[in-house]
């Protein structure tokens, strides 16, 4: 059995990769060029607001190289979780980029687009039918929380990719997808083992992060055989070691032995990691355990208000010692000032130097050895105007607050900026993180096949 060869370009589309590594990958004649473009790590804002966390020009740079090489050599380019979150506006952003590349390079591309944003009315029906269950430790979903969600996407497995690949596309642009799916689908379609294909996808989706030294912006090459897969870094500066690959299996997972995904989980209990050459690693023994019924993960976000922040610091030892009394005093003064006018708001003082990073989990929430503190004053309210008002009031009150033992009567805060207050804009929270039962996993994710760009024609021009 010939090995199935996969070129993974970068950990997230738009994070970049060295051209030398990409060319090294192309010399190995890959059957597939694939990249994962998504993550929930940057938080709920991007999904909710329909904004990509990756930069448009950076995404275009990566795609230009991948698509030009793919078309020139007849290798499909498959992209998972378009635009970072995979919602309709995210998919649209990346589709525009691909159309632009096709136009600029005079390419005619067969593009398969897989949609993953779900209709909320459909989801309300599924919720009522008891087909949506919480993904612990997320709370149960209410009809209200679903209705309030700005956007809900489902994470597709390999089935929609398999459907899209049947049209022999040059490029597959998928909405929200299980990270390994864009790497695994074509291998599975060609008859390679599903468990191995998904497991290598799980590693390739982070590209060179599984090497030493690791990198989120370098390529990685994967080979799938009959009963194994192997990984090879494409930069001479990196090595895959059994430890680096096994260690990557832990990354961002609750349990390294059981990796759940659409329609089942990977079981790694019998996995072995062997050093093949100095810089390549072979993995065997992965199992796939299907779930009954088939479930996909839903992700949704809702807007909870608007935020304004002010950044400041203090270098006054007396103020540092009194910081809790000061923030309590400011909070009370602001509440009193707007009583009956603005009452529904969230005012927070993040105190860096004490517990700004770990909050309630901080084992040493004290300022005993601090010579300075960083302070973020944050107001979140129903409108930007209200958030501005609360933030400005807290900031000006704190600046001139008279506290016990105060010597610095000219002002309590050092502001690095003018203006001192910043609009952070809309604030979102994750509202849906649940499993949806489905009998036909491909049907949730409609595939649209279109031709984009055009062949440059000297005669016509």
């Amino acid at each position, binding site marked *: 059995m010939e090995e199935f060869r996969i070129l993974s370009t970068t950990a997230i589309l738009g994070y970049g990769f060295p051209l030398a590594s990409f060319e090294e990958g192309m010399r190995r004649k890959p059957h597939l060029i694939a990249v994962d473009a998504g993550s*929930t*790590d*940057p*938080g*709920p*804002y991007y999904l909710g607001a329909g904004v990509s966390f990756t930069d448009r020009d950076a995404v275009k740079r990566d795609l230009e190289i991948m698509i030009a090489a793919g078309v020139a050599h007849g290798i499909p380019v498959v992209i998972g979780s378009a635009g970072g979150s995979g919602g309709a506006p995210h998919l649209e952003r990346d589709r525009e980029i691909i159309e632009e590349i096709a136009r600029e390079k005079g390419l005619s591309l067969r593009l398969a687009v897989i949609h993953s944003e779900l209709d909320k009315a459909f989801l309300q029906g599924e919720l009522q039918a008891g087909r949506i269950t919480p*993904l612990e*430790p*997320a709370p149960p979903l209410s009809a209200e929380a679903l209705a309030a969600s700005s956007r809900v996407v489902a994470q597709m497995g390999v089935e929609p990719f398999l459907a899209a690949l049947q049209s022999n596309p040059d490029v597959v642009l998928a909405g929200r997808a299980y990270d390994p799916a864009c790497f695994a689908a074509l291998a599975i379609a060609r008859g390679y083992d599903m468990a191995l294909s998904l497991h290598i996808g799980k590693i390739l989706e982070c590209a060179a992060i599984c090497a030493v030294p690791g990198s989120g912006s370098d390529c990685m090459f994967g080979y799938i055989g009959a009963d194994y897969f192997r990984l090879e870094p494409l930069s001479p500066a990196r090595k895959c070691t*059994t*430890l680096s690959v*096994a*260690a990557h*299996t*832990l*990354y*961002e*997972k*609750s*349990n*390294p*032995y059981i990796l759940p995904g659409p329609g089942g989980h990977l079981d790694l209990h019998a*996995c*072995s*990691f062997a050093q093949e050459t100095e810089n390549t690693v072979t993995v065997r023994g992965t199992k796939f355990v299907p779930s009954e019924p088939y479930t996909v993960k839903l992700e949704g976000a809702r807007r*909870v*208000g608007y935020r304004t922040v002010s950044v400041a610091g203090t270098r006054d030892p007396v103020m540092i010692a009194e910081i809790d009394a000061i923030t309590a005093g400011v909070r009370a003064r602001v509440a009193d000032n707007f009583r009956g006018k603005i009452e529904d708001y*969230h005012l*927070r003082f*993040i105190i860096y130097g004490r517990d*700004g*990073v*770990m*909050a*309630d*989990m*901080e*084992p040493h929430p004290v300022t005993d050895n601090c010579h300075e503190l960083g302070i973020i004053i944050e107001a*979140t309210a129903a409108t930007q105007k209200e958030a501005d008002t609360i933030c400005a009031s807290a900031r000006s009150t704190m600046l001139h607050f008279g506290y016990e033992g105060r010597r610095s009567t000219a002002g309590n805060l050092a502001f690095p900026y003018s203006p001192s207050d910043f609009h952070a804009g809309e*604030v*979102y*929270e*994750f509202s849906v*993180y649940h499993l949806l039962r489905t009998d036909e996993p491909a049907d949730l994710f409609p595939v649209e096949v279109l031709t984009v760009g055009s062949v440059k024609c000297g005669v016509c021009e």
Partner: protein
Amino acid sequence: MKIALSEITEVIRSKNAGPYELTFDIMFKDYAWFERVCAAKVFNKPMAAALFRIPLEDVLGVVEFRPAKAIKITIRRPIPSGNIGETDVYGAQQHGPLIDLVIEI
């Protein structure tokens, strides 16, 4: 004997595992240290709850992963990623108390 965890490990890190969980990876320098720490049962749910000042039921798992000579602790996030009141959206800076930790083995 008492020893600082930072002296016998190569990696100590934290990260989100989805928006509702935080996961900590402790990877040892060699199998000898990994086996000794596992044998001494240093890491367990009550220990993790005390270290991170969270309720015992919020410690979701403590798993020994031999292929990476690693121990993984997964907890429920005190506040889901990005919610109002949150301090670390990626969850990548919650590992500090593990670096400071002195263990008895």
